[in-house]
């Protein structure tokens, strides 16, 4: 009994002490990167044969090198071929994941925002409703995981139910979608879903994973300005994802999860987004719309939200603010 108690005490102290000696993942990455970098003296010969080598090509070439820890592990027989290849690929993927800075993010998002107005009916002119949308949107953005940037909200003049988010803080909701909404909590859920896309940098993540743009690690406004072809490529790539293909399913599910959380933090009924998704799925208006073609099915989204809804205890006590919503949209 005494021995058990001593072990318990020891483990408790150990458990307390471990977090204070945290390791730096960034440094580990740097070390791994260093260890997998090919010897510098081999580079000039390559430059001679391929003077116009792009960063994408060079990163692909690096993946073929056998230097560093992985190479050593390989030669010592510590890793089989498959593992070694996987490790090299992982390191190169990590190397390409340089974050795009806010200024560049805003330039990409701003250009896409023009495209949203251009493609989806332009701005809907109702200053009072716009003010209301901004108040609800700002409320959820303020409690989001990325509340240190400015968010901008707009209404699109189209009857199709649509909602978009472009990088840098631009959020759009169509008048058609607003007309399908029944209360403020549902509106907050929809806007928070879009805020979550921005807060979690979903479009940028997609861009950075793109094979054709793996060399964007050095992307700056100056580079974009000097190389309009690169900016063209970037915009085409993200436009294709946002307006045609849609984001990865899992990113949509993540935006649902985070969106519900942001709405809940604001104080809204957390089940409202789930309810609205269900309604949207049943609506004929939604069939064939860009919204339905770029998002996973409503059933999948509903089921996933339903699975994790037990986290929100006493959810029914939270307000939906139906009356205030109806006054705002003059219903």
């Amino acid at each position: 009994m005494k021995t058990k108690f001593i072990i318990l005490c020891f483990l408790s102290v150990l458990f307390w002490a471990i977090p204070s000696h945290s390791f730096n993942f960034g440094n580990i990455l740097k070390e791994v990167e260093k260890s997998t970098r090919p010897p510098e003296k081999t580079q000039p010969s390559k430059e001679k044969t391929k003077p116009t080598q792009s960063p994408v090509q060079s990163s692909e070439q690096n993946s073929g090198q056998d230097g560093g820890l992985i190479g050593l592990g390989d030669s010592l027989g510590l890793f089989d071929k498959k593992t070694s290849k996987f490790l090299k690929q992982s390191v190169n993927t990590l190397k390409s994941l340089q974050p795009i800075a806010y200024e560049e993010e805003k330039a990409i998002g701003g250009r896409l925002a023009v495209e949203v107005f251009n493609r989806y009916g332009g701005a809907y002119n109702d200053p009072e409703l716009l003010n209301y949308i901004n108040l609800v949107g700002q409320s959820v953005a303020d409690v989001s995981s990325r509340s240190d940037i400015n968010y901008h909200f707009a209404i699109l003049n189209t009857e199709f139910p649509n909602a978009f988010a472009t990088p840098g803080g631009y959020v759009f909701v169509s008048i058609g979608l607003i007309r399908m909404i029944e209360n403020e909590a549902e509106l907050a859920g929809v806007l928070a879903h879009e805020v979550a896309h921005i807060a979690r940098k979903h479009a940028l993540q997609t861009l950075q994973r793109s094979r054709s743009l793996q060399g964007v690690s050095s992307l700056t406004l100056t580079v974009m300005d000097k190389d309009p072809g690169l900016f063209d490529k970037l915009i085409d790539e993200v436009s294709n994802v946002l307006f045609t293909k849609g984001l990865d399913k899992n990113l949509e599910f993540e935006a649902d999860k985070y969106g519900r959380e942001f709405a809940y933090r604001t104080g809204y009924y957390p089940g409202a987004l789930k309810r609205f998704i269900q309604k949207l799925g049943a609506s004929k208006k939604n069939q064939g719309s860009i919204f339905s073609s770029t998002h996973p099915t409503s059933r999948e989204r509903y089921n996933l939200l339903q699975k994790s809804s037990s986290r929100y205890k006493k959810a029914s006590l939270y307000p939906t603010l139906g009356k205030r919503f109806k006054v705002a949209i003059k219903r």
Partner: protein
Amino acid sequence: MRLLIYSFIFLFFGFSFTSQVTAETWYVKKSATKLQAEAKARSKVLGKLNKGTPVDVLGKSGKFYKVSAAGETGWIFRFRLTKVAPSGSGGDGDVLGALGGQQQIAARESAYGSSIRGLSPVSEEHAIKKGASPASIESVKEMERYKVDDEALDKFLEEGRLGAYAD
């Protein structure tokens, strides 16, 4: 043996106690963040803090954190604080210190206040080159100029019993 057990207990509780009383430095996420006398949204406002202001977190009660900032102790709505110093990536103002008169200005910005950054020239030039309509470009600029008034937002939250006002 008993001595050893007591030593462990002493060490464990000693460390736990230390970790509780050591104040952690957090940062204000947004300008015009209210420092209040009590852990209630309707309590007296002691002052308004700017984005990036460091505060020492002393305790927690419901949705509020007890903090110490610039010699004042008060309460802040928890979602207005972050463990990581804001990067200034397009936020709403510089850190001017704490509790000074200039902080009050942040709460009185007009509905169409100036945006920190407008539509980037790179974006605008590209949009024009690709034939986007001038109305679409103007709509984005309008969207960026639109600024929700902090007092109006606070009133909106209070009326809806949301944010810091939620029960």
